[in-house]
């Protein structure tokens, strides 16, 4: 089982000092956090994608590409990649590039985002959120799986004879998760393709998470990818850990009370009881997160949010150390001990997927021939060639 951290990259004033980092400092802090998580032995680092302040991570593959060169073992991922407002052609290109650059040490999670105006800013209609997620992802898959794509749909200009480059590493596309908190259509989408489903219910009661995950599992089996308990599931979580429970509560409360999203709302007592937020000692985190499998079955990835609400970088790095030393090794061992032998321990790695594709005879025998029908001295020179290729 994998344990990682994800960041939404919020720029938030530290309520205990009144200090606010600038965007540059926050971006660099995210990079430091990811490198530290790699060195400490956590399994995954994922960045959000946002296009409005107070969030800095607008360009995930730039950040993850840098981290691919700076880290050794950690899997680089997203939380989430906006499948609705990004051009699926650019996603196919950027994430295939990241896959090649990182040597397959990446995956990504599709989501619809949490900021309404992003839709109009990128020329889309928020009421079409689900249809956009469905159509764009269907095209993204084809661009990775097929060397030459002819395509037309509702939301994007048509493609004729288009090849997305670089082609996926070893001819096998990256593993994809789908994240949704309350849209069963997205769980259905994940199940249909046999992709992973990550329920990031950090602000929601566990009962809701269990219903959604269970729905995905049943649909995964229905669509013929394996038994329900073999589906690939991830959960979001949120923790603040110190050696003693009291120290954790005292230190985190001023951040909790004014935190974006849930601050000024329920008390920390209510919120820690009702949502996965756990504030306490390593043992308390182990007890809480070591029991979620009872509600959702054995799952493959647990992600933690630890760097939001204005927590200073030094504190975040300490959180990573405590997680990596005192929490994750125990949770990993417990998960492995109770896991049924025929349920996957982890989400499929690139090597797993290559092996599976080869076993199924699905990997292309040869590279794509680099024939270029398009490039002229200028773009306009190429009009004749383009006409010739598109007229049928």
């Amino acid at each position, binding site marked *: 089982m994998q344990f990682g951290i994800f960041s939404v990259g919020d720029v938030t004033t530290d309520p205990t000092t009144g200090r606010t980092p600038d965007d540059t400092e926050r971006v660099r802090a995210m990079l430091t956090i990811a490198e530290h998580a790699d060195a400490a032995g956590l399994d995954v680092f994922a960045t959000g994608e946002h296009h409005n302040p107070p969030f800095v991570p607008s360009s995930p593959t730039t950040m993850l590409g840098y981290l691919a060169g700076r880290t050794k073992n950690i899997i680089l991922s997203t939380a989430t990649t906006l499948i609705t407002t990004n051009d699926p052609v650019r996603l196919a290109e950027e994430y295939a590039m990241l896959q090649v650059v990182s040597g397959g040490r990446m995956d990504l999670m599709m989501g619809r985002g949490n900021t309404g105006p992003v839709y109009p800013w990128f020329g889309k209609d928020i009421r079409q959120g*689900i*249809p956009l997620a*469905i159509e764009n992802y*269907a095209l993204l898959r084809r661009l990775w799986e097929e060397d030459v794509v002819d395509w037309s749909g509702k939301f994007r200009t048509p493609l004729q004879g288009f090849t997305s480059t670089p082609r996926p590493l070893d001819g096998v596309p990256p593993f994809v998760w789908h994240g949704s908190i*309350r849209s*069963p*259509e997205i769980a*259905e*989408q994940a*199940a*249909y393709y046999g992709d992973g489903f990550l329920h990031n219910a950090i*602000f*929601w*009661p566990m009962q*809701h998470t269990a*219903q959604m995950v269970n*729905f995905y599992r049943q649909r995964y089996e229905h*669509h013929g990818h394996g038994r329900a308990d073999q589906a690939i599931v991830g959960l979001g979580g949120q923790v603040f850990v110190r050696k003693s429970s009291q120290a954790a509560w005292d230190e985190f409360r001023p951040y909790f009370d004014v935190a974006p*999203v*849930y*601050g*000024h*709302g*329920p008390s920390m007592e*209510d*919120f820690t009881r*009702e949502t996965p937020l756990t504030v306490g000692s390593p043992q308390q985190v182990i007890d809480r997160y070591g029991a979620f499998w009872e509600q959702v079955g054995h799952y493959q990835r647990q992600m933690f949010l630890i760097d939001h609400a204005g927590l200073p970088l030094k504190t975040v790095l300490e959180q990573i150390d405590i997680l990596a030393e005192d929490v994750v090794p125990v949770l990993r061992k417990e998960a492995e001990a109770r896991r049924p032998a025929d349920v996957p321990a982890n989400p499929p790695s690139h090597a797993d997927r290559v092996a599976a594709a080869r076993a199924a005879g699905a990997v292309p025998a040869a590279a794509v021939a680099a024939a270029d029908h398009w490039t002229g001295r200028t773009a306009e020179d190429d009009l004749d060639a383009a006409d010739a290729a598109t007229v049928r």
Partner: protein
Amino acid sequence: MTARSIVVVSGGLSQPSSTRMLADRLADATVSALAERGVEARVTVVELRDLAHEVVDMTLTGYARGGLAEAQEALAGADGVVAVTPVYTASYAGLFKSFVDVLDKDALRGTPVVLGATGGTARHSLVVEHALRPLFAYLGADVVPTGVFAATDDWAEAGTDDVRPLPDRIRRAGEQLAERVAAREPARRVGLYDAVPSFEDLLGA
């Protein structure tokens, strides 16, 4: 046949509350009128005062906790609804609107509803028509034509309106709600997972 579910939403904040009193009488009138039609009904009362903190919390967190989750569940499965608010500053009470704000937007679609409001004087009578009715029209509720406004004076022994006194208006509103409830199939709670389109349908959409 199983009993029909009448859910009463009372936005009164004082104890005792004339809003609750009007809500109870509208519910009683509805249950009696249903009984005359041979339809059994049970009444569930949602007192917004008890849910005030949960309503604000949901506004901030997006999820319903405790009694609010139960109240939302009851409304979504209601065969008929009695909704009554006090008039605060020329409109429905803020807590009443906040409760409606955190309802699922389809929770009351097609559900028969009778509207009521209470206030100090009859000068606020049209609040039912200019504030409450458009709100429930937006929700797609099936609102009966008679809305009942009760001013303080209406609770006097004879009332100030001797042409159409409050008990008559309550009885008429209850009749109209009962008629609509009795004419419908019993409500069936549709869960989040009951109507998910197949992926083939999603692809073709």
